[in-house]
């Protein structure tokens, strides 16, 4: 662990409020807190529209924070910057530039002192480690969705970010491509240990990739519901992970939480703060789970 202990990144009581037509503020996210250690991979999981992406865009600096603090490597974060590279759900490549030039745009910005040749080699290196060595000079429209997303990932890693933010990066891909890319990202992270936060609503993806899964309650007023540690060894292998008996316990735990959120939403729409339905936890997971009550969150 580094000088920052287990709080390399600290999100403290993040609130995002939008004014609604009645002139009040609707709190989409209300008091989201978590800490991430250096090099850790944390997934944030929750139902669509619960505000997961809002948390990520606030961390990325693309969305203003209504209240709360974000600290990255001991410094308060304000505005967007190349120290927090983002991979969006759609690849967001600039369509008038080739894959090479898209990555070069970031490399030029982050290695201002490098020579032309060095930059070229960097771009080629990052594109080849995402498996695009043969398609460097193609334009986005000539690439499949999966390949475009690979360019997006290469562009993000090429920034040498302190933190990598993945916003449902595989959401638009078919399941085979998705598995491919999950492994590409894991291999990348094995080599370049980058603190990562990934937003997803895919339970299997979250377990396979993360060190920790943060479960978010349904919005509005979304916050951290529960946290689950995933102690599988790295580098991970999909077959081994799927073969591990704990895998299904973790899976059951996440699905129970998400279904519990569903029931709350549909069953008691009027209850302002219903107690979470007690989740039946498999014994093996019992001691790994950290249940955060609202009181604990505000005490952080």
């Amino acid at each position, binding site marked *: 662990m580094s000088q920052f202990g287990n709080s390399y990144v600290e999100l403290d009581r993040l609130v995002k409020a939008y004014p609604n037509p009645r002139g009040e503020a609707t709190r989409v996210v209300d008091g989201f807190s978590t800490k991430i250690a250096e090099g850790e991979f944390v997934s944030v999981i929750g139902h669509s529209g619960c505000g997961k992406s809002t948390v990520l865009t606030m961390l*990325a*600096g*693309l969305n203003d924070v209504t209240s709360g603090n974000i600290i990255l490597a001991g410094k308060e974060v304000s*505005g*967007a*910057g*190349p120290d*927090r*590279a*983002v991979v*969006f759900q*759609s690849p*967001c490549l*600039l*369509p*008038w*530039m080739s894959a090479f030039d898209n990555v070069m*745009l*970031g490399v030029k*910005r982050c290695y201002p002192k490098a020579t032309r040749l060095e930059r070229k080699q960097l771009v080629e290196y990052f594109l080849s480690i995402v498996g695009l060595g043969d398609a460097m000079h193609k*334009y986005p*429209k000539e690439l499949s969705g999966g390949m475009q997303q690979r360019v997006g990932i290469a562009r993000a890693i090429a*920034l040498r970010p302190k933190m990598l933010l993945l916003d449902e990066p595989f959401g638009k891909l078919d399941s085979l491509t998705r598995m491919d890319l999950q492994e590409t990202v894991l291999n990348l992270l094995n080599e370049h240990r980058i603190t990562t936060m990934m937003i997803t609503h895919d339970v299997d993806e979250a377990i396979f990739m993360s060190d920790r899964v943060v479960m978010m309650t349904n919005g509005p007023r979304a916050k951290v519901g529960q946290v689950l540690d995933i102690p599988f060894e790295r580098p991970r292998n999909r077959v081994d992970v799927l073969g591990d008996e704990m895998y299904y316990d973790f899976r059951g735990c996440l699905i129970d939480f998400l279904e519990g959120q569903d029931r709350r939403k549909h069953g008691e729409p009027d209850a302002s703060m219903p107690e979470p339905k007690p989740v039946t936890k498999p014994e093996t997971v019992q001691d790994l789970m950290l249940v955060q009550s609202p009181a604990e969150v505000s005490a952080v």
Partner: protein
Amino acid sequence: MKKFKHILLKTLDVAALSVFEPIVRLCYGEDPRAQLRKIGKFILIPIVAFILFLGVWHVTASGIETKFGKMPTPGVTWEQTKVMVGQVFENRRSEKAFYVEQKTKAQEHETKAAQYAAAAELPKNASQKEAFLAESNAQAELAVNARSATFAGTPTIIYRVVHSLKTVFLGFMLATLIALPIGILCGLNPVFMAAASPIIQIFKPVSPVAWVPIAMILVGALYSGSSMQPAMLSSAIVVAMCSLWPTLTNTALGVASIDKDHLNVAKVLRLGWWTRLFKIVIPSSLPLIFAGLRISLGVGWMVLIAAELLVQNPGLGQFVWDRFQDNSAAAFGQIFVAIFIIGIIGFFLDRTMIILQRSVSFDAPAGA
């Protein structure tokens, strides 16, 4: 062979001439029935429609008697087209003859100059020598004059077309130079947009004809150069005043409606203002900018004819006016020829802009 077909089809597509696609496919024997049906629908029928139009024109025109004689029918118009083409060749011949004549004249003067110069060398008294030298110099000067004389025939239709094109491009350039930066600033900055908006709204609907006197007066007062005729400059200014608006508004729209994702990329990379402008803002709004430029050039070409007619810039507009002043049936026919020339050139200008527009838009197929 296959590859050539592909290239051909792609070229037609880029040139917005996909109407002719079935002909290419037919030549390669691809589903002849379907191709023939397409040719019938989209090539034959337009041709028939045009012939019908000529028929209606012929019948209508034959029944109209004007003070210039009968209104020109398609036949008369065609005759006058041939006359005008003949004039072009005639003019070229007399131009050639003129320069040959000038050359012989110059040579004569040169030999005379040499003879006088030689005579001046002979030992004579000083005053005679001086007279010979003066004569030699005068002859040399005449030779130079003869060589530098330019042919001043009546401007042919070719000359007028070229002159009109020069004028419209000058005006279009002026318009673009003004409209692009202002449009970009408007798109980038809502406050700037709000500030510029009333000015744009007021001047946009002004008729080109209203700018003519202003342009003429200002050029008369401020322009003293000789590289360009003042009439040409005035026409170009009128063109610019009317054709800058489509480019301006389209550029502003294009810049203001950049994909938010692309701007996020710029934010994450913390790109500087200029890098953001040239790497993200301008490329992303190029398709709309070119759409605006295309409309601008079309407007400019329309405005130009009116401006030339009023300012007496020796292009196609002035030609129409000249023919009107000529008061003859033949001249009336030539006005009709001019209408077709103006229309066809306008069509080609538009096509050129379409091709440019397609070659910069990143979502459409790139050049063949």
